[in-house]
């Protein structure tokens, strides 16, 4: 890595970052995948004219064909339509979980880094939360709140918040020792101003990278929760519950569970590739973590 001799103006730095990202192969592939899936999810009512929950017993178990691109399920519902509408739910949950866990995890991380006395208490609680497997924590909270998309969002946000808090805290601890933060303090800036104006902007890179990965985890975890029956309740299509419903017919009607699984894999793959690219460009020091 080469250090630029002088800091270019902010607007130019932004363009430079974008240019670097556009040259990054895995970022491009990831962004394309995520973009296409988002478009397909938004345009679902235009791409298909069938109701995703409409049952047509005459058309049960039709294999993929020109009329039913991904076949039909045990109730004669169009699998492709259900996968497209399921994408809306998965992406919404991914986005909401990334935002909520980023917001609260970010606040906890910043507070822990700035107010050293709170640090050990906050971090012990985060450690304890991290001691439960994330999926188990989410199952527990999800079961508490009842089968609903909102409970999945709350459950996963709590489950992934500690990891985000750790990343932000680690970056903030480095940033707060930098000369310019010390200078701001010497000029009499208060804690709030230091955190918001000086520390936070420099944590945004690693936070964004972390949140892309949280997005990918959330898509996978949502599917797992719906698969266990703790997600959006049927007949609302979600990638996880389509697989759960198709499981009993996995041998005779493999298409019911094949396509939602592919959709999950492609969406998570896209977010992961995008995150890899962001990490290389925005935050070269950050290491991969489970």
């Amino acid at each position, binding site marked *: 890595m080469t250090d630029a001799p002088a800091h270019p103006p902010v607007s130019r730095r932004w363009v430079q970052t974008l240019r670097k990202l556009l040259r990054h192969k895995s970022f491009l592939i990831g962004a394309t995948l995520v973009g296409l899936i988002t478009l397909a999810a938004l345009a679902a009512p235009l791409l298909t004219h069938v109701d995703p929950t409409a049952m047509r017993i005459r058309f049960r178990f039709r294999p993929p064909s020109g009329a039913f691109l991904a076949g039909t399920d045990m109730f004669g519902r169009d699998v492709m339509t259900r996968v497209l509408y399921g994408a809306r739910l998965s992406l919404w949950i991914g986005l909401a979980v990334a935002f909520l866990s980023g917001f609260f995890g970010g606040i906890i991380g910043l507070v822990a880094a700035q107010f050293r006395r709170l640090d050990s208490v906050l971090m*012990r*609680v985060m*450690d*304890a*939360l*991290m*001691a*439960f*497997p*994330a*999926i*188990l*924590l989410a*199952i*527990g*909270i999800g*079961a*508490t709140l*009842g089968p609903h998309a909102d409970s999945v969002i709350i459950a996963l946000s709590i489950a992934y918040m500690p990891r985000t808090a750790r990343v932000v805290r680690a970056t903030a601890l480095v940033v707060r020792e930098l000369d310019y933060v010390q200078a701001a303090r010497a000029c009499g800036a208060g804690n709030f101003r230091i955190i918001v104006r000086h520390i936070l902007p420099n944590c945004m890179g690693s936070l964004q990278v972390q949140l892309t*990965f949280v997005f*990918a985890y959330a898509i*996978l975890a949502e*599917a*797992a929760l719906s*698969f*266990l*029956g703790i997600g959006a309740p049927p007949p609302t299509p979600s990638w*996880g519950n389509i*697989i759960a419903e198709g*499981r009993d017919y*996995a*041998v005779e009607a*493999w298409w019911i*569970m*094949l396509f939602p*699984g592919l959709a*999950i*894999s492609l969406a*998570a*793959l896209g977010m*992961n*590739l995008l995150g890899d690219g962001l990490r290389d460009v925005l935050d070269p020091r950050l290491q*991969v*973590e*489970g």
Partner: protein
Amino acid sequence: MFRPVLGSLVRAVPVILVVAVLTFFLMHLLPGDPAVVIAGPDAPVEAVERIRAQLGLDRSIAEQLFIWLGQLAHGNFGTSLVLNQSVVSAVIERLPVTLSLSMIAMAIVVPVGVACGVTAAYFRGSLVDQGMMLLALLGVSVPSFWLAILSVILFSVVLGWLPSSGYVPLSEGFWPWLAALIQPAVILALFQIGFLARTTRSAMLEVLGQDFVRTARSKGLTEWLAVMKHAFRNALIPVVTAMGIILSLLIGGSVIIEQVFALPGIGRLVVQGILVRDYPLVQGCLLLFGCTFVIINVLIDLLYTVVDPRVRND
């Protein structure tokens, strides 16, 4: 050698305590009344009240918390509401399943992951290197339960090579036991091999370029000795850290995989417990998961001092 171990044990105590308190609150935020669950939907109000008093649910939350912590201190984890069995015996009954599953998976992940990682670092950009990167990427992108179902269709239904579900205890023979667990274990392992290989690769890359490896080569050691004895030993710390993370991830991942393969392990126990609101059972299992994680971390700290003498002298 002794002090760092003691230090990490002491640091683990508050975490375990917080884990216990958190477990308690997590369960007591659950809506739904376990007394009603036990008494049945048509039970008279007095019966529900009696059961509630029996369980101590009529006391305040703070009282219940201290009673529970006190019982824990005596090794009493309570009785399951549904299974008619103490939590400890329910857990002990199912522990071998989850342990067997994680151990077989670990026995696959470690050698394969390390071998792939070292090979990928040595032959940078080779097919092994690229294949491993792809595996690592798929490991964080493909849903495990979906791959598990596909695998059952192929290996159990179509080819008929392996049982599709169920557990056979080790006491009934090594091969039946392995046959029952190998499929879920490989699925679990597949998701972690990429992570370990990637960590090993980057640790090896950092070490391979260093002077002492060049010295080892130039003094005439075989390539194998130079790479494995001189380079790999010095790359062990991040590798051991990754192994600890992977062991926790495997135990967490088994929650879902046990569900798909109908394995009667801890993961299945806790999921069923959550669904029927069996407070004491879920509390006990969550506490077990939490403590396992903390203990794994202590063991990893301990392992550091074994693999790297420099840690010992700090």
